[in-house]
């Protein structure tokens, strides 16, 4: 299951959904809002998604991973909205009989989600500037799109 959530994520609750008597391994990935990115001090961030396509693309990623690797369950939930430092931005959980497939699948899911799912991140820096990650154009254009507040 892939879904977007406007509410804070609860890892314990999400992990419960993965329980399976055949599972010997559960690997989870949590992406947290950290206080620095590429040398800038981060204060907060916003995630925005094109929900119908994000959910469809997310489900496709999970289906691809399940087709490639012997996993039992695979789930990914991504936050949207305004997040503070330390908040959980994305949670991925995978169960499998054996740990190799669980590690590989978990990593493949987060890599693909970051590369393909239409979700965007705007960072707010302590300097007062902001930036849409991966959308910066060269030189002053980036500043035009995100004036100091």
């Amino acid at each position: 299951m892939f879904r977007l959530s406007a509410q804070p994520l609860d890892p314990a609750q999400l992990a419960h959904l993965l329980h399976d008597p055949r599972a010997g391994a559960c690997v989870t990935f949590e992406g947290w809002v950290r206080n620095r990115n590429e040398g800038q001090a981060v204060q907060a961030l916003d995630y925005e998604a094109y929900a119908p396509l994000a959910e469809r693309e997310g489900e496709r990623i999970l289906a691809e991973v399940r087709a490639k690797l012997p996993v039992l369950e695979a789930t990914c939930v991504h936050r949207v909205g305004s997040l503070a430092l330390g908040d959980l931005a994305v949670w991925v959980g995978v169960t499998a009989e054996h740990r190799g497939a669980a590690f590989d699948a978990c990593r493949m899911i987060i890599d693909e989600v970051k590369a393909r799912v239409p979700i965007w991140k705007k960072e707010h820096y302590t300097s007062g500037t902001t930036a849409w990650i991966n959308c910066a154009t060269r030189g002053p254009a980036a500043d035009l799109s995100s004036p100091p507040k």
Partner: protein
Amino acid sequence: MKTIHVQYFAILREQRGLTQEKIATTAATAADFYAELRARHNFTLAPEHLRVAVNEEFAPWTTPLREGDSLVFIPPVAGG
């Protein structure tokens, strides 16, 4: 002349100052349509940095536009 529904996200939403609009256009393809919008609104992102979705599904830039299509231009993603 076709009427196209456009939704804007992230940097395009901020640069347009709108989340969505209906536009009448003579553009033949999704690529032509983005070129038209980019010229009008000074979008900073070149099309090679975007993908396009037509009717909630990724589509080639060469997709011909049809009356009532719903388009979204997808800036570089940054989930996670």
